[in-house]
């Protein structure tokens, strides 16, 4: 019987995951009465595997967050190698990202702030300008954009570096001589991201507000001096804002740094840059959005 014989009965593989494994496929063929039960168990196992895989990174993140916070308060953790890694990473992030962040702040000022001021002036709600700017630009837009910049510029770099170290075996070599990669790489980098998130977030907010003021002043919508404008903005901030806004910048930096490092560190020998980078980016974006939404909830 040739393969092209039109009379030949066609046999379709059973619709289970075992179809790719001839041994398992042979076993399912003998199922008889138990076939539906086995199929159901197979489905359940698949759901369980999927759930565990999705929850795994979240659990790793939670555990590692606690680890970073706990270790950062122990003087013994701050060895000179850890201090060196912290300072060099922080310099890289802040110096390297300063221009990009300020530029993004200026663009946000041009696009968002000038529009807000213009439309509020047009509707006679100019007194709400400060409040709107704080709630929209500084509280909502700034953390997301700063988080995306951190992720793109440095978070992906950490993912790549640590991923290549994990895949190549250098991480194992470090462990063999007593160098804990969590202490040497994850702790200082995460804290450097945290400090940088706050610093760049404040600079971004300042740049966007000043640019918005300049644009509105030039278009004649407002005539107040800049300090009056900034005073309006400051007056519009509630006591909670003074806590929430810095906390949001800090948290975004923390989770972007930690997520990037952990994605790299949990890479396996089956991973490559083709799998690692998309995973790191999607996780990072998701983390930034989740943090932003969590802080925006009025609980």
């Amino acid at each position, binding site marked *: 019987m040739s393969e092209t014989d039109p009379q030949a009965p066609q046999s379709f593989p059973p619709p289970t995951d075992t179809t790719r494994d001839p041994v398992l496929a042979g076993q399912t063929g003998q199922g008889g009465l138990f076939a539906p039960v086995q199929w159901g168990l197979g489905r359940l196992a698949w759901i369980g595997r999927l759930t565990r895989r999705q929850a795994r990174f979240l659990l790793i993140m939670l555990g590692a967050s606690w680890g970073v916070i706990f270790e950062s308060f122990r003087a*013994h953790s701050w*060895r*000179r*190698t850890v201090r*060196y890694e912290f300072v060099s990473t922080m310099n890289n992030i802040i110096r390297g990202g300063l221009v990009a962040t300020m530029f993004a702040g200026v663009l946000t000022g041009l696009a968002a702030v000038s529009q807000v001021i213009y439309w509020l002036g047009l509707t006679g709600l100019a007194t709400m300008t400060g409040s709107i700017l704080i709630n929209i630009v500084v509280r909502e837009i700034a953390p997301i954009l700063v988080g995306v910049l951190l992720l793109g510029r440095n978070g992906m770099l950490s993912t790549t*570096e640590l991923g*290549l*170290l994990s895949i*190549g*075996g*250098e991480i*194992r*070599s*470090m*462990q*063999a*001589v*007593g*160098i*804990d990669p969590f202490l*040497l790489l994850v702790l200082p980098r995460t804290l450097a991201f945290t400090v940088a998130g706050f610093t760049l977030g404040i600079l971004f907010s300042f740049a966007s507000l000043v640019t918005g003021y300049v644009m509105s002043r030039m278009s004649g919508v407002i005539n107040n001096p800049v300090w009056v404008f900034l005073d309006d903005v400051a007056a519009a901030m509630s006591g909670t804002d003074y806590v929430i806004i810095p906390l949001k910048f800090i948290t975004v930096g923390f989770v972007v740094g930690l997520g990037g490092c952990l994605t790299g560190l949990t890479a396996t020998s089956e991973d490559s840059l083709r799998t690692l980078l998309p995973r790191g980016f999607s996780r990072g974006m998701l983390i930034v959005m989740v943090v932003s939404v969590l802080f925006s909830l009025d609980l």
Partner: protein
Amino acid sequence: MDVYASGPLLELNKAVPSFDESGLPPVPFSMKLMPGDCMVIEARDIGHATMFADLCCGLVPLDDGSVRFMGLDWADLGDRELNALRGRIGRVTHRASWPEFVPVHLAIVLQQLHHTTRPIDVLVHDAARLAESFGLPGLPTQNPSFLPEEDLVRAGCVRAFLGRPHLLLLEDPLESGPAELSNSFLAAITEARDRGAGVIWLVRNNAVWQEYRQGITATWRLADDGLVAVRMG
């Protein structure tokens, strides 16, 4: 370095490595390494040699038995103690061990910077002296990818011998290194043994260690049924 003289420096007592984690045969491994000893272990498989060195460092989980270093069982120690103890081991390994984003001179002194409080000037001075003895013109400051393979082997030796480690696990650098490395390598081993360090020299080729035949205290072969003693006739 304080000389450890309270018994075997490294002791494998019927240690059965986890096959899933290491790929080593799951049979009992037993041996003792005293301070000042130099033991040659022939392992044809490079991967097995690396895993055996990992077993000595307490990195491989055991199904049974124990591995003790300086009288301490790896399995009884917490993370901090484990890492502190591993800081006393110098290794030359065939596994990738040069992070690409760290310049070689930093990678050489990294272990000492991490585990000790010795001033960096002293460390750099010692590293430069060792680098010259292994045939390098000084401490290489480039990134690893810009360094020839032979110089990386020399740098690996500098890193292993820096800081006067108590135990040296040397996956034969002579095999992939330049021929003129042999004398300085053997001299460094002798110097380390004289101050009380134990040396495990993992070789693939039997001919490599013949030059140092008189100095070897024991020879073993890493086989499918564990460590087999080899006669040095």
